[in-house]
């Protein structure tokens, strides 16, 4: 038992679970306090149960499909941030890369009629990967050749991407209904998921996202390429000393991070529901959710699959909270507390380690 608990991976997982636990407790306290302060009837225990089950008691199978749909974009932006982090870079630009990728996918799926319809969605996804990658690459190149901090350049690129896309939306506007964009000709296949969960829910995107997560895990942990990228990230000078092209490494890391977010955007904008580009004057929240997901998942691609699912469950519960007399902001607070707690997870891990060691020496 002690040896099991002493393993770093086990400690990491326990620390992450503790963060979640604290987040949930805190959220529950807020529910309690809120219900005491309000005159309107509200049911905190009921609400907590709703959150914990992702609202499925009300939404049922269809709700499950919606949760699956929530997972894929934040799983990919989470991977984007996590991948960059594993290679020593902090990608705050997931939001911009996400929007750039999403727009590219939508544009291709609407305009590139010269491509056979059955392949169009694949081309759209690839286009999103490419454009997201280019946005990420800009930060990478600046870091590699001019030593510009990637945090700053990627934050700024968020706005550049967002406003550029806002200005380009007119290209894909519906002539008959100017408030909307044209519907994409091709969408991501549903693989029959729509029949199971009802329409407008999950599609193949969730499988793509999970497959990409596994791929990233293999690349990072098992390949020489991942070894090189991590070496560049952890210690650029040592990587150079070892004959690794550090500039190429940093550029590629940011490019891949951007490509992942770009793919995430595509999974939303040509999905079964197809989110609409209206006025894009808010940074895409999926990008920032990515930071939370990566933190909670400890930047490990496998961990990120779970953390993305967990946060998607919380999000899924949001709309159902009204039935217990609360609004869905409670979920956002809980998520925020969990992220806070997971930022402290290092402390949890240390305490945990000390606790185990103390027990070990006593016995």
């Amino acid at each position: 038992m002690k040896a099991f608990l002493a393993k770093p991976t086990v400690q990491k997982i326990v620390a992450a679970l503790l963060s979640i636990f604290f987040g949930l407790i805190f959220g529950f306290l807020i529910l309690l306090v809120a219900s005491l302060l309000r005159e309107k009837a509200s049911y905190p225990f009921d609400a907590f149960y709703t959150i914990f089950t992702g609202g499925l008691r009300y939404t049922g199978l269809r709700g499950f499909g919606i949760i699956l749909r929530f997972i894929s974009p934040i799983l990919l932006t989470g991977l984007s941030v996590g991948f960059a982090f594993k290679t020593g870079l902090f990608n705050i630009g997931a939001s911009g890369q996400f929007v750039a990728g999403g727009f590219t996918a939508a544009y291709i799926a609407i305009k590139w009629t010269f491509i056979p319809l059955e392949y169009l969605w694949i081309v759209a996804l690839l286009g999103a990967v490419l454009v997201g990658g280019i946005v990420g690459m800009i930060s990478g190149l600046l870091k590699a050749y001019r030593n510009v901090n990637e945090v700053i350049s990627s934050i700024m690129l968020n706005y550049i991407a967002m406003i550029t896309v806002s200005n380009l939306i007119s290209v894909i506007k519906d002539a008959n209904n100017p408030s909307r964009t044209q519907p994409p000709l091709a969408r991501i296949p549903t693989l029959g998921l729509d029949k199971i969960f009802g329409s407008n829910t999950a599609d193949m995107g969730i499988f793509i996202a999970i497959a990409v997560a596994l791929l990233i895990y293999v690349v990072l942990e098992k390949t020489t390429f991942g070894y090189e990228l991590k070496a560049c990230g952890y210690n650029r000078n040592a990587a150079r000393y070892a004959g690794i092209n550090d500039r190429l490494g940093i550029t590629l890391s940011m490019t891949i991070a951007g490509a992942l977010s770009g793919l995430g955007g595509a999974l939303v904008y040509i999905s079964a529901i197809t989110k609409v580009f209206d006025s894009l004057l808010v940074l895409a929240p999926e990008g920032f959710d990515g930071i939370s997901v990566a933190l909670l998942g400890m930047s490990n691609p496998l961990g990120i699959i779970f953390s993305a699912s967990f946060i998607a469950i919380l999000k899924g519960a949001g709309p159902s909270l009204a039935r217990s007399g609360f609004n869905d902001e409670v979920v956002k607070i809980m998520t925020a507390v969990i992220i806070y707690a997971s930022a402290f997870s290092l402390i949890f891990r240390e305490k945990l380690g000390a606790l185990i060691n103390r027990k070990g020496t006593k016995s």
Partner: protein
Amino acid sequence: MIDVIELRNITKIFPGIIANDDITLKVRQGEIHALLGENGAGKSTLMSVLFGLYRPEKGSIFINGQEAHIANPNDANRYGIGMVHQHFKLVHNFTVLENVVLGVETVHNGVLSMAEARKKVVELSKRYNLFVEPDHLISDISVGMQQRVEILKMLYRENNILIFDEPTAVLTPQEIDELMKIMKELISEGKTILFITHKLNEIKAVADRVSILRKGRLIDTVDVATTSKESLSEMMVGRKVMLEVEKKLAEPKEVILEVKNMSIKSKHHGKNAVHNVSFKVRRGEILCIAGIEGNGQTDLVYGLTGLSKLSSGEIHYKSVNLADKSIRYRSISGIAHIPEDRHKHGLVLDYNLAENLILQTYFTPKFQNKGFLDFKKIYTNADQVIQKYDIRSGNGSRSITRSMSGGNQQKAIVGRELETNPDLLIAVQPTRGLDVGAIEYIHKTLIDQRDQGKAVILVSLELNEVMSVSDRILVMYEGEIVGQADPAKISQQELGLYMSGSKREEVIE
């Protein structure tokens, strides 16, 4: 005599290691008491306990016969204990004066009053012959001067028990001599000094008594005057150690490396860091590049290994001109490099030991297949290297290198580089910060390499090392080679003249 400090039965445990195991140590008023031990013997830990940085699991501390509870450095300061850390704790964009008063500023009505402090600092500096300028910025003064500022900080706080943690590791030979003088000065003014080191010469030069630690235990406390260096090193390492380097005469063979008119631009100023340097290295010899730190040796090595671009010149190695070849090309063609800065270049500190041991070879068929790392082989390799080079760490091949001691990190680098079976080994300060046992081992390895017909370039600041290990010496001064010498024929004094630029000759091969 009075025991000014008494540490009783101190035990300090870190996860996986007992750093101090039931240590009892008595220090007399007014003595220089040295703490001798290998890397990881627990010297620094013990002093950190005394200084309040660590809380021991067991044991107690007595200062002047009274039990003292030292929970943090402020408590230590109240008991008159001060410490000069190995890595100085100075604010670089503050002046000397500001650094000295930091934390104990004199304040009048909420306003800093520096005049009094300045008077005291100037006075102290004069009294102890420290020659410190109160208004210089820390970033502008030499490492030796920075150390004096640390000493001044302790004096300003009127500390009577002064702990020096490996104070000479960062100093030049001249600065070391001066530090020794200062330490004696301090003793004559009634201070007590605890002096952590693993250099026997320094103990012989200044210390009155020495306590030897090995693997967390106190071996003995002895008088320096009546104990030989040999027996000190034996107590420290636990076996007999050869202090003199034993080697056969070199048998130089064909030239393997020829540098012609190499120049490299400096990153700091407009001039050349390496200026028009030419030399040859043969198989079967150890060529030593001597010089005072910062005279272009670092840049010369960067040029040879490819870390810096040459601004002009050629590097002929096995009949190829390396000048425009990549770092990877040079490493594959048999040049190994033990870098000067093990944290900057030598290791990826967040990788584990096994991953660091393949830093130069991860892409070879030995460790990968179609782009996938073969972890089974990587860990087998690590276990072999760990065994062969006696690399000690908490979790074996899976230890994160950041958590390893400096000496073991260095052994890991040396092991990794030698395992590539190089034809030319470039070793920069390979024994910096190592203990006698490890130094002996590395010197032996360098000579082994030579005897196997490899060429070795050794860059060193330690005159002892230069004189005892090398077969031929080139002296660098301000980026140029100013002299060539045979270590058997030149005295340390004469070498010093070349190193300080007071003497030079054309070196023609």
